[in-house]
C-alpha cells in the first residue's frame, strides 16, 4: 500500500493466459492478465461468470484440467510456480499457498471426520504426530470461532451447517500459516448474516496473522468490504484496478460504475427499476476485437468496436482500460 521500501510482493502474475484447444482453434478464458498481490495485502477480484477470475487463480494453483493451455508467469514469493513438477508444487500448495472454494458442501470429504481432515494436513506437510496435529486442529477451530470445537472435531461434514463448514475450510487453509489464501466466492453459498460473520472472521484473521488474501467474487459489495485494492475483470482481461475506496467513490471504467450501481442499498429510497448491467457477457469463442464491453457500454463509440483499449496507469495506483473513462 505504501511505496517506501515495499517488501517483496507475495504473488506476481505476468501476462497470464489460459486457453482451451477446441476443433479448429482455441477458446480463451484468460487473455493476458498481469497483477500483483502485495505482502499483507487483500486484493479483491470482481467479475461476472465467465470473466476468467476463477480460471486465473486456478491456473496459479495448478488446478486446471489437463486440457488447459497456460502461458505467462506466476511468481509466488519470487519463485515461478506455473511449471513446477507436482511434488514440488504440493510442498507449496496447502501449506504456504492455500485456497478456499465457494461450495463448503462439496469441499470436505464426506466420510472423514472433521478432525481427521484437519490433522492430516499437518501430518502431511509438517510431519507432526497425529496427536499433536489433532490438538492443533482443535486450536484452529477455536480460532475461527467454532463453538464446542472438541465435539465438532469428531463430527462428519454433513452434521455441520454451511457457515460452519466454510469456517472449517478457512481453519484448514490457515493450518500451515500460509503466506497467501485465495478465497473464491467464499460467502456466495451462505446467508447474508453468515456471510457478514465470515467476512468479519477473514478481516480479524488478517489483522492477527498478516497473511495476504485474494478475494474473488461476482459481488462487488463483498469484495469491497474486505479488500484494500480491487481488480475488475471482464471477458478474460483486467479492465480496471484501483484502491477500493477510490474505485467505489470514483470508478473510471463504465463497467465498474455499472457494477457499483448494482450494489444494493437498503438506505436509499427504492427506485422504479432495479439497476443492472444491460446485455450479457460475450460467449466463449466470440471474436476478440476492440473492447469486449463495448456492446453493453453506454459510452461506446466506433473506436471501441475496432481498437482494443490498453490497460494504462492513470496515477494514484489506478489502472484502466477504456477509450472513454469517467474522468
Amino acid at each position, binding site marked *: 500500500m505504501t511505496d517506501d521500501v515495499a517488501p517483496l510482493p507475495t504473488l506476481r502474475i505476468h501476462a497470464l493466459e489460459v486457453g482451451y484447444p477446441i476443433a479448429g482453434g482455441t477458446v480463451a478464458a484468460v487473455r493476458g492478465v498481469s497483477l500483483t498481490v502485495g505482502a499483507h495485502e487483500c486484493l479483491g477480484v470482481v467479475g461476472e461468470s465467465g470473466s476468467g477470475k476463477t480460471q486465473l487463480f486456478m491456473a496459479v494453483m495448478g488446478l486446471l484440467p489437463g486440457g488447459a493451455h497456460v502461458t505467462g508467469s506466476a511468481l509466488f514469493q519470487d519463485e515461478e510456480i506455473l511449471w513446477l513438477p507436482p511434488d514440488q508444487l504440493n510442498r507449496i500448495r496447502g501449506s504456504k499457498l492455500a485456497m478456499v472454494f465457494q461450495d463448503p458442501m462439496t469441499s470436505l470429504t464426506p466420510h472423514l471426520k472433521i478432525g481427521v481432515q484437519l490433522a492430516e494436513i499437518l501430518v502431511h506437510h509438517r510431519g507432526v504426530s497425529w496427536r499433536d496435529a489433532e490438538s492443533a486442529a482443535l486450536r484452529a477451530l477455536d480460532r475461527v470461532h467454532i463453538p464446542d470445537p472438541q465435539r465438532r472435531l469428531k463430527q462428519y461434514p454433513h452434521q455441520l451447517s454451511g457457515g460452519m463448514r466454510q469456517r472449517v475450510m478457512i481453519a484448514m487453509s490457515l493450518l500451515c500459516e500460509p503466506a497467501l489464501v485465495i478465497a473464491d466466492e467464499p460467502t456466495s453459498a451462505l446467508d447474508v*448474516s453468515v456471510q457478514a460473520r465470515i467476512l468479519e472472521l477473514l478481516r480479524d484473521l488478517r489483522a492477527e496473522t498478516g497473511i495476504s488474501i485474494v478475494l474473488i467474487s461476482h459481488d*462487488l459489495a463483498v469484495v*469491497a468490504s474486505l479488500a484494500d485494492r480491487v481488480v475488475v475483470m471482464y471477458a478474460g482481461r483486467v479492465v480496471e484496478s484501483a484502491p477500493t475506496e477510490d474505485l467505489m467513490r470514483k470508478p473510471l471504467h463504465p463497467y465498474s460504475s*455499472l*457494477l457499483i450501481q448494482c450494489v444494493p442499498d*437498503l*438506505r*436509499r429510497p427504492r427506485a422504479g427499476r432495479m439497476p*443492472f448491467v444491460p446485455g450479457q457477457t460475450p460467449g466463449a469463442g466470440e471474436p476478440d476485437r476492440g473492447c469486449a464491453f463495448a456492446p453493453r457500454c453506454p459510452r461506446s463509440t466506433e473506436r471501441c468496436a475496432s481498437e482494443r483499449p490498453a490497460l494504462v496507469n492513470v496515477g494514484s495506483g489506478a489502472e484502466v482500460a477504456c477509450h472513454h473513462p469517467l474522468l
Partner: protein
Amino acid sequence: MSSSAAMSGPLLDVRGLGVDYRGVRALGAVSFEIHAGETLGLVGESGSGKSTLARAVLRLIRASRGQVLWRGVDLLRCDAATLRRRRRELQIIFQDPVASLNPRMTVAGTLAEPLYIFERALTAGERRMRMTRMLERVGLSEAMLERYPGELSGGQCQRIGIARAMMLHPQLLICDEPVSSLDVSIQGQIVNLLADLQRELGTAMLFISHNLAVVRHISHRVAVIHDGDLIETAPCDTLFASPMHPYTRALMAAVPDPIGWRQAGQR
C-alpha cells in the same frame, strides 16, 4: 377476472399451514393472504422453511396441518382432478435456472409442454405463436426455440423458466429464489422483468428470497420467516423503514456496506 377476485376475497388464503419431516418441525403454523395482482415477499435464511412453505402451498410435499384456500377451495384436501385443474392457475419458478430445465429438451419443447397438457386443442401454428410471443415478452428472440439449455447463459435459462411458468397465464406465480444463482450484475434484469409481467398481466406473486434488496424492490408486502414461523408481516416500505422484530433488524444490518461508502459518497 379481477372483479370476481375482489368479490371473493383473497386469491390465496393460507391458514395455519405446517409441515413436519419425520417428526421434525420445518414449518410451524403459518398464515397469510395474497390478493389478486399483489406481490408478497417472503424473506428468510437457509432452513427457515421458506421453500418448504412454497412446496406445501402447491402440494408438492405433504402438509402436516392447516389449510391452503385457493379461491375458496382447500388445495390440501381437494381430489386429484380438481388439484390438476387448479394447478394451471398456480406456477412456480425455481432457484437453479439450469437444473430446472430438461437438458435434453429444446426451448420449444419446454415451452410447449404446458400447452400439450392443458390446451390440447391448439394447432401447431397456434402453439408456435404463443411460444414466440411469450419469448418476446421475456426479452428473448424466436431463434431461441431450437436451442438447448446447455447453450444458454444462466440469465437466459431463468427467462425460459419464467416463460414456461407464464405460458398458461397463471393467477399466482411462486418464485423460489429466482435470482440468487445469477450474477449481481444481471439480477436486476430478471427482477424488473418479473415486475413488468406482474404489472401487465396482473399476476399475483409469492416472491421468496434471502436477499432483502431484491425482495424490497418487487414486493407490496413483506413477510419475514424465521425457524418455521412468520415473525413479522408489513407493507414493504413500512418494514424497511421501521422493522419491528429484532431478527428483521439483524437481517438488515448484515447487508454489506463497503467502507461506509454510501453515507460518505452517495449523499
